[in-house]
């Protein structure tokens, strides 16, 4: 399932003195099967964009096509529910939305809400809890007795249990410790390898370089660039102008470049950097 934006604009509190532009003439396509990253500094329109992906917001102008559903400013709020099942949203600090007395009930709540019979919803809960790497023993526990990282996994399982075609993640690693962050990113990589379409909003450029197929760059409500991480991260000056950082490897490679090292293509991942350095410095196989 693809999501396509055709000249989408969105105005907050339209018609009031508080009106503000959220999105400004955005056209883009998110392809089914891809791992798409959305970057941009705070206030660039990332969250507004995200809320259009399952019609939580409707465009003020232009059209958003989600699978075979076309959403415009005139679209009625009725019958949007199926979209919410197809596009699963994991919001920031998703663990704050847990509410049930047990993990099993919390995770099964979503599918039941979409009309899945109880027994089937419980089976889905069991499967999704395993998918996010939690042991079966947590099913009976209260989600509030778990650690922060585990609670976040439960919240993600709750979205996966709805079997969405597209999984949208809004800064899913914020506030986790380094080990938790790594595990979480590996979990998404595995889901993607198993065919899950993923949309990731993040400030972590290393994660974009390491995991994403495509990047969308937002600034002041506009889509200012899109492409592969390789393409988008080539131009360091342009990124700085848009208040964005570089992946760690790219900024390190720039320092080396300033000292005479030559890179045909600015390396973005550690693997690329090491390979490039080996050819310039030799290595074990050199001798």
């Amino acid at each position, binding site marked *: 399932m693809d999501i396509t934006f055709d000249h989408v604009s969105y105005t907050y509190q339209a018609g009031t003195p508080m009106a503000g532009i959220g999105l400004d003439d955005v056209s883009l396509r998110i392809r089914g099967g891809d791992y798409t990253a959305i970057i941009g500094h705070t206030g660039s329109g990332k969250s507004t964009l995200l809320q259009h992906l399952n019609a939580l917001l409707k465009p003020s102008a232009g059209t958003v096509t989600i699978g075979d559903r076309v959403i415009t400013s005139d679209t009625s709020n009725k019958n949007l529910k199926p979209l919410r099942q197809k596009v699963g949203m994991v919001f920031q600090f998703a663990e704050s939305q847990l509410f049930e007395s047990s993990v099993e009930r919390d995770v099964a709540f979503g599918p039941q809400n979409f009309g899945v019979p109880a027994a089937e919803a419980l089976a889905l809960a069991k499967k999704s809890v395993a998918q996010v790497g939690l042991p079966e023993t947590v099913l009976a526990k209260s989600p509030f007795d778990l650690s922060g990282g585990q609670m976040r996994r439960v919240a993600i399982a709750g979205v996966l249990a709805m079997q969405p075609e597209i999984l949208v993640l809004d800064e899913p690693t914020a506030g986790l410790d380094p080990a938790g962050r790594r595990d979480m990113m590996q979990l998404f990589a595995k889901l993607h390898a198993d065919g899950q379409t993923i949309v990731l909003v993040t400030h972590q450029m290393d994660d974009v370089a390491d995991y994403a197929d495509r990047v969308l760059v937002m600034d002041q409500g506009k889509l200012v660039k899109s492409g592969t991480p390789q393409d988008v991260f080539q131009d360091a000056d342009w990124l700085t102008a848009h208040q964005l950082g570089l992946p760690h490897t790219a900024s390190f490679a720039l*320092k080396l470049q300033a000292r005479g090292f030559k890179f045909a293509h600015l390396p973005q991942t*550690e693997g690329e950097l090491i390979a490039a*350095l080996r050819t310039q410095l030799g290595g074990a196989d050199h001798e």
Partner: protein
Amino acid sequence: MANIIDVKDLEYSYAEQKAPALQHVSFQVEQGSWVAVIGHNGSGKSTLAKNMLGLLEPAAGTIKISGMELSEETVWQIRARVGIVFQNPDSQFVGATVADDVAFGLENREVPRPEMLERVEAALKAVGMQEYANREPAHLSGGQKQRVAIAGVVAQQPDIIILDEATSMLDPAGRKEIIALIRELKAKLNLTVVSITHDLDEAALADQIIVLDSGKVVETGTPATIFARGSAMAKFGLDVPYSERVKEDLTAAGLPMPNTYMSEEGLVDYLWTLRSTM
């Protein structure tokens, strides 16, 4: 210089848990220094902070702040000297406006109103938030909220500020901003900083790093000594510094690399030299 914090053989156990949360924890912190406490989740970092503020009562051991032993009698005096900023900017607001919020701690201590007004204004100025004095805290960004929380601490004129993962919920720009602010305040107000953190950039600023694991102090040392552990640091709950990761990869690729810690600039210099000798 004198030790402003002296923790000896501290023990703490939570009632519902079998393993003690802190065991034989001892360390000293020099007045005016910056100490980072690191360790993975559940290692006892926050339990330690709560003990230092008298929010939890140790099962055994002593905590001395400026030579004063923490006890039921001294806890209020000590809390006046030690301020803490918590992780979640949204869960530490009580005031309807920014200024009210900063004043809250002073009201608790019955600071006379004229002095309170002065201290609130000075504290907001110190964190660069004086223009927001009458705003609602809810409408601020994460970084601004943490600034207000820091102002609340600064207004108390403490000797010690504890940062309990105070930057972990902020975006990279907000994080840099807060770290820079703490550096500035530390110099200006002669504070001692204890930062509980997973952030490498924050830990790198410390004079001393204390590593906690399963409630025990397993290492103490300068950032350079701790960072030189390379990939072994992952088990301490910190990221491996980027320069160390590259160094390990290059060593594995058969290049001659030194064992000591190198910053990124140091590594660039080293690689440049290596390249020019080939």
